[in-house]
């Protein structure tokens, strides 16, 4: 059934349909609407779940780690400073191999205080062992949350479903809310591989001396390496039941493209328009929408970008002293790929600044007119400098 839904509530609906049993979160704009709806579902009996109120995001993650360790399907959501505060426990969740799903609404970090869209918060957590999936619209958010549970519970790794502040979290769109019977068919009840049991007490996560620590970490990576494959299987089943699929990356007019623009999140929607406009003018341009950031789909990047003339990466984030983070990752993926094209890195739309059709067109023309990148990162749309 289609309903006009706010992006945040697309997340809430998916969590309801996933029959999550324990949720814990601390309010932070622009994430609050997600858990606000969930707390209402708990209060009015729509969901048979426990909502644990906590005093910080650190505790929220600790609470879902505890519940997940007991073999319970869990959910949390946060944003920006809240995610930063969770940092320590993000490691605990992944190395503890707990299939927690979290919605993370991309918001800029302070100071100066800024509640708007910026990807640096989630990308700063790239080394914590969480799977990261970036979404473009409300439908993709709802679908990805459902897929995230299948994926997480199969590989025993936590998943972060990432959506843009306001451009997605607070935008109303028609979203198809699937029936519970179909969702139940896609997502069976959680059967945990690790579950604390009071009738057979044991401890998890304690001391791991040098003779075992490396093996544990290697196992996390081994699981990560299988994510892409398992995600394809999950998507195939999702397609069979719901008739929708997204892919870890999406190619848009890439087959004959000379220049491919790499975008993420809601900017992909804008970019589709730009590509259509440029194509109508005869420009050989395509778009690669990157959905999966962790694990980084290196082979897909090499396949899709290895043969084009130029790559333009749009980063709504920045790693100080280096460059845009998606550009870094793409350069790293290509550097051992003989004859790879130059990677043009563009920084745009930080702290909620709009990435408009004109911004993206400017990026395209700059890339086309330059033989080589003038800099590792070109900042687009600056006002005073």
């Amino acid at each position, binding site marked *: 059934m289609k309903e006009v839904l706010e992006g945040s509530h697309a997340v809430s609906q998916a969590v309801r349909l996933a029959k999550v049993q324990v949720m814990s979160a601390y309010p932070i704009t622009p994430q609050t609407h997600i858990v606000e709806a969930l707390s209402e579902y708990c209060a009015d009996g729509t969901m048979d779940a426990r909502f644990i109120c906590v005093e910080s995001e650190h505790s929220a993650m600790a609470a879902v780690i505890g519940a997940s360790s007991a073999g319970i399907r869990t959910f949390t959501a946060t944003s920006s400073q809240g995610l930063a505060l969770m940092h320590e426990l993000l490691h605990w969740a992944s190395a503890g191999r707990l299939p927690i799903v979290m919605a993370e609404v991309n918001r800029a970090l302070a100071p100066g205080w800024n509640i708007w869209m910026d990807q640096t918060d989630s990308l700063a957590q790239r080394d914590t062992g969480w799977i990261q999936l970036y979404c473009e619209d409300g439908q993709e958010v709802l679908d990805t949350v459902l897929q995230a549970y299948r994926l997480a519970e*199969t590989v025993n790794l936590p998943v972060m479903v990432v959506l843009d502040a306001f451009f997605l979290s607070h935008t109303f769109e028609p979203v198809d809310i699937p029936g519970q019977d179909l969702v139940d068919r896609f997502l069976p009840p959680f059967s945990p591989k*690790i579950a604390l049991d009071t009738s057979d007490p044991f401890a*998890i996560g*304690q001391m791991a001396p040098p003779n*075992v620590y490396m093996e544990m970490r290697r196992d996390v990576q081994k699981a990560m390496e299988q994510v892409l494959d398992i995600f394809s299987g999950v998507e195939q089943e999702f397609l069979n039941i719901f008739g929708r699929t997204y892919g870890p990356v999406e190619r848009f007019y890439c087959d004959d493209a000379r220049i491919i623009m790499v975008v993420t999140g809601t900017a992909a929607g804008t970019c589709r328009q730009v590509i259509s406009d440029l194509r109508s003018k005869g420009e050989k341009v395509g778009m690669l929408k990157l959905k999966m950031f962790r694990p980084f789909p290196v082979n897909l990047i090499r396949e899709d970008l290895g043969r084009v003339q130029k790559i333009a990466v749009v980063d709504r984030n920045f790693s100080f002293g280096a460059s845009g983070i998606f550009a870094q990752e793409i350069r790293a993926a290509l550097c051992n790929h003989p004859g790879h094209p130059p990677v043009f890195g563009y920084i745009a739309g930080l702290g909620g600044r709009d990435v408009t059709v004109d911004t993206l067109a400017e990026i395209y023309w700059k890339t086309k007119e330059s033989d080589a990148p003038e800099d590792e990162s070109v900042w687009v749309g600056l006002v005073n400098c």
Partner: protein
Amino acid sequence: MKMAQEPENGKKIPLFISRSHILTDVNKTGSWRFVRPIYREKTAPCSTACPAGQDIPRIEMFFNQNQFEDALNTILFENPFPSVCGRVCFHPCERVCNRAGLDEPVAVHDLERFIGDAAARGELKPGLKKLPAKGKTVCIIGAGPAGMAAGYFLSRMGYSCDIYEARSEPGGILRWGIPRYRLPETVLTFEIDRIKQYGLKISCNTPVTHDFVEDAKNRYQAVFIACGHGRSLKMNIPGEHMADDGLDYLNRLRKGDTAPSTTTAAVIGGGNTAIDVARSLVRQGTKTTLIYRRQKQDMPAFKEEVEMAVEEGVTIMELFSPVKIEKHDEEFVISLQKMKTAGMETDRGRSRVIPDGGPGHQFRTLKIFTAIGAEPADPWLSPLQKTDATLDLSHCTLADSDPPLLYGGDLTNAIQSVPDAVASGKQAAMAIDIFFKQGRHAITDRLNSCRVGNGPALSMARYMGEKQRNRHEDVVSFEHINLDYFPRESRAETKTLSLDDRVRSFDEIKTTLTIDRALKESRRCFNCGICNACDNCRIFCPEIAVTLHAGERQIDLDYCKGCGICVVECPRSAMELQEEG
């Protein structure tokens, strides 16, 4: 540690994590500790404010745990009059209730009334035992609330009691002074009958004389005089004899005499009796004006009663002092002196008033009632000749005599209220018991050891060495409550008669709460300072060092590392941290 591997899509997902079945009891984390948590019950502010020293948080705890008889017995341990006090007490407990810091005070009096009324309906049975007979008999003069309370506590302690009452039935001011719309007779009769079951003997229609008391000192092992104030104060103004006595009027109403109705009346005074007279007159269709020489805000009557009187149509003339009463034909004319405020009285917190110097006023009415206070009916009813051996206690006075002769109730109380009368009876009972067991010299210290918190109220539970009554005298303040456990919730409102119905009858104005509302209200109580077995300490302890054996929680000091989480998570300040010695 174990290696776990799971097949999925034909592939294995490696899942190597640290996991152990080895017990951690070898790791005695107690060695890290430099502070230790202890269970220490404290005193709730309501209990210290209650003249009868009732253990209010424990009453509400039992109530909301559906242990209704335990709730009743916890009240009856300290006060034989829950239904009466639930109605007529001015509930000082609620004025200091910590819950007011969050939203509104707990409706303690409504809950007390509910419990008392459930007992009156026979739904709850009191279970307080009598101690073995002591072979001593105490003479009590006056069967008002103080005398009855003294008889009740003394009987429970094993004394025989003979009570002498001048009027035809016991109850004193409760029966003869408080109108039916505040205290129905059936309520009073039930609670007096319950006291009688302890075996005390009440001789009604037996006014006593000074000679009787002198004789009683020979016949009894102790005498307690609590006959109240039998004589109304005089205004000492010309024409005063033409005014009716307010208390007499209330007595007549209680006896069933409907005094001849009059269309207008003036009531002179500002205490509870004056308000009771005025509101009773309104119920008989009289247009009533209350004349008070001070400001309305300084009336000794309970504020709520004054407000209801005004709602019911009583006109209040403040700052008017009567100087003369004359009769003109059928009418009385009261000459009034207008007063004005002039600074504050040093010790009573009210404004001093003096004549304003302006011209006199005249007030015409068909009937006049005075209710400006009362005093002992005879001089011998006060312990006039005080010696060094006279013991002036908070709620009674022990004269220098053997056998012990005590004065109490309104004769000695600074605040003349029903719970203060109960306090007086309790203090007298304890003092008499201490006198026999340890002698006169021990009374003050022993009573002090039974005080509730830092107030004057005495705990009979503490006196009789009841278990689990070892509350520390520290009073729990609002800052000690962990508000995370208490969502805001509005206070119970009792249903009241409509104004129309109120002024037309003597029916009781307020109703008793329903069971559902009463339970909900009892859950609002923080249970300040007492353990209600919420188990937070045990649930939150990261070392599982809080153990539960046969309902008792204990800290296993081998593992308690002194983190203090239990103390923080105790919602009601029944725990605290102590430095290791």
